[in-house]
């Protein structure tokens, strides 16, 4: 088929950040499907809780303190996270490097506290369905947390190499910031469900 030139794209930029970039949309897609998974797991918990009048099946209440500390750490981490985002938009390499180191540490810290959260549930996964659901919910979010912290550490190392000075990499940092927001946001309903719904009854 014959062709006639109708548009010249030679002046277009070679990268874009936020919703301009396909990676941002891909990240959003994965958030949507992971969010659906979380919502369904939370739905399963509520379904069981509403099916059994004696929920939480006579189990002792979980100790909420480790979970509360994790929550506070996660909320605090949002501040440097968004500072990092601004530096990434400015393509400023040194502040981005520092920001990523800070975010890696602020990712590891809640993971350390998370270790103490499991025993603080005061029930095992195989005691009854209530225990199973607590472990499942906490396990799901922990997997999520480990994955993103691993991702952040790899990106941090990458930004210290010669590959760091490219628009594409700064875009990756922005998407990492975006995903961390989701890790924090998805924790809040799970935190309330695990530690505060048993205290309602």
């Amino acid at each position: 088929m014959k062709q006639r030139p109708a548009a010249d794209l030679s002046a277009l930029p070679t990268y874009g950040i936020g919703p301009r970039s396909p990676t941002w949309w891909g990240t959003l897609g994965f958030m949507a499907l992971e969010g659906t998974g979380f919502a369904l797991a939370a739905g399963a918990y509520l379904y069981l809780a509403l099916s059994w009048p004696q929920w939480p099946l006579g189990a002792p209440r979980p100790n909420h303190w480790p979970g509360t500390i994790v929550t506070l750490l996660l909320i605090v981490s949002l501040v440097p996270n968004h500072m990092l985002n601004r530096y990434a938009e400015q393509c400023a390499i040194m502040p981005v490097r520092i920001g990523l180191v800070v975010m890696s540490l602020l990712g590891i810290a809640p993971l350390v506290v998370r270790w103490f959260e499991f025993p603080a549930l005061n029930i095992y996964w195989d005691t009854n369905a209530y225990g199973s659901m607590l472990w499942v919910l906490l396990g799901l979010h922990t997997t999520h947390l480990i994955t993103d912290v691993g991702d952040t550490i790899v990106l941090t190392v990458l930004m210290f190499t010669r590959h760091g000075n490219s628009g594409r990499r700064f875009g990756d940092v922005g998407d990492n910031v975006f995903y961390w927001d989701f890790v924090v946001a998805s924790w809040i309903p799970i935190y309330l469900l695990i530690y505060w719904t048993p205290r309602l009854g």
Partner: protein
Amino acid sequence: MSSSDLTSERDLVPQATPKGDLAPERDGPRDTGLDDATLHRWLERTWRTKPGIIGALSSVDHKVVARRYLVTAFVFLCLGGLNAVAMRIQLSGPQRGLIGPDLYNQLFTMHGVTMMFLFAVPIVQATGIYLVPLMVGTRNIAFPRLNAFSYWIYVSGGIFAWASFALSMAPDVGWFAYVPLSGPEFGPGKRADVWAQMITYTEVSSLAVAVATIVTVFKQRAPGMSLDKIPLYVWAMLVTSFVVVFAMPAVMITSTFLILDRLVGTHIFNPAEGGDALLFQHLFWFFGHPEVYIIFLPATGMVSSIISAFARRPVFGHLGLVLSLIAVGFLSFGLWVHHMFATGLPKLGASFFTASSMLIAIPNGLQIFCWLATLSDGRPVIRTPLLFVFGFVFTFVIGGLTGVMVASVPLDLQVHDTYFVVAHFHYVLIGGSVFPLLGAAYFWLPKLTGRMMSERLGRWHFWMAFIGFNAAFFPMHLVGLWGMPRRVYTYPAELGWGNINLFITAGAAVFFLSFVLFTFNMLHGALRGAPAGNNPWDAGTLEWATTSPPPSYNFARIPVVTHAEPLWAEREALPVATGLRVDARELVISTVAEARPDIREKSATPSIWPLFAAIAVGATFLYSIFTPWAVVWGALPIAITLIGWFWPKGDPEDEE
């Protein structure tokens, strides 16, 4: 919109001056002003899949990956079909001793899981992987390595299931594997675990494809292809991908909960310890009902493409069809409970789901009327693809009518678990999806192979398939109403079901032979068929603007779109965009709604790492049916392969 609007001063972002600590862009040669031969040499060098085994295993070309998907899904169709033939031979007369109950349980389970998870979903997604990038006028799918990864995961899941079958370890609990039958108490051995992990493989794969498809449609459309100019098939794949994103996590949650109950002793589905068996059904059907539409919606897109090409006019009611697709996508999430009427739900809930089940017939009916209007207003040219569309309309309408019947609780309770239901869903699935797929094969295979399939054999194929299908499945309505239950390996002679079952088996044999003929026609067409040329049907969408088969880079220059049927609007010469680099894999990223060109983005280069990552992930899944520690041991190889995948290798595609 005229093509000059696309690049007016107002919209063009000037080349950003390097800011911050950004390395300056190393520019390369552009396509502007290159003659066709030189352009082809450059693009072929940049985009080709390298020769040799490593090259083949590293390919990220959406057409190569899609071809692999299509062939693999077709193999699974044949295997699932052979399961069905074996069952039909066993049921052809009362008290036949060919197959015992244990093998029969594995056969119908493998038939179901193969057809649903290894054939139907992968083949509709594979068709999209091939066609969507071509139809939206881009050079590769978004996230090409993720796409390659999804294929390796899919094929390892399929091999896992069929190797288990060969070892007599196949799941035997039905394709939906209800607890408590599949739970730790009544499902000893590894069979139910095979079901659960096979689900995990195939869902990971289809979720990955769904995200890649959504982003391709949102961000990689050719300049000018605003939302109202997106082809209906692409709309159908977009809506389907959204349904996948919100439905598939449900079945992954279900299968994960099941394997936890079986492997580490959780009690999620165990009513004795505060769990609930019905929760399994809710979670499963929250996926399971949208699943039907995941299979059906792409088929409606195929039907729209075929009808407009053969009716020689754009589809009547384009906007109405798009809105119907979206409505069906939404409503598909509100019906799941109608699979559970026999579980003794509260009356109000049952009534709600009856109403919503009937509601979804409205947008579906609207689509049928739009197609009929297109045909009656156009000048239809009756060729094999259109015959299959006629077969689809006839069969799917019958399936839809029995669907409205079983949506009402009293009738559903009467025919629940009988052959009436088997007849209903085969009419919907084969009528609604397989017939359009067969039509699509005749329609688009010339694009893949560059050669036409035989029209005469095609007509034979259609009539054999149509008659064979109806002979096999229509009598199932009757035998179901007489009370024959699903999933029985035999029945006593006194019930008088022998003759009708023999007739059904004869119909199934004809249906099976129609696929043998189809296979022959495909192979013969691919090797000996008449050359197809770029656009054998004189259709209007962009996949027909390039050669058959398309080159590795799809389009020598990215088309500029001015109409929903671009090739009909621009018969003289196709408007195209220039200015892209030819020494790196550059494609155009456009804005979501208007499709204004926005970025010259680099597409990922070939890589062997997605295969390694799939091996690491697959091995972890496999190992995890034996011990929960697999997740811990598997994490390291998975992490290593993912780092290998994402770590930049110094290509321009990685750096800029």
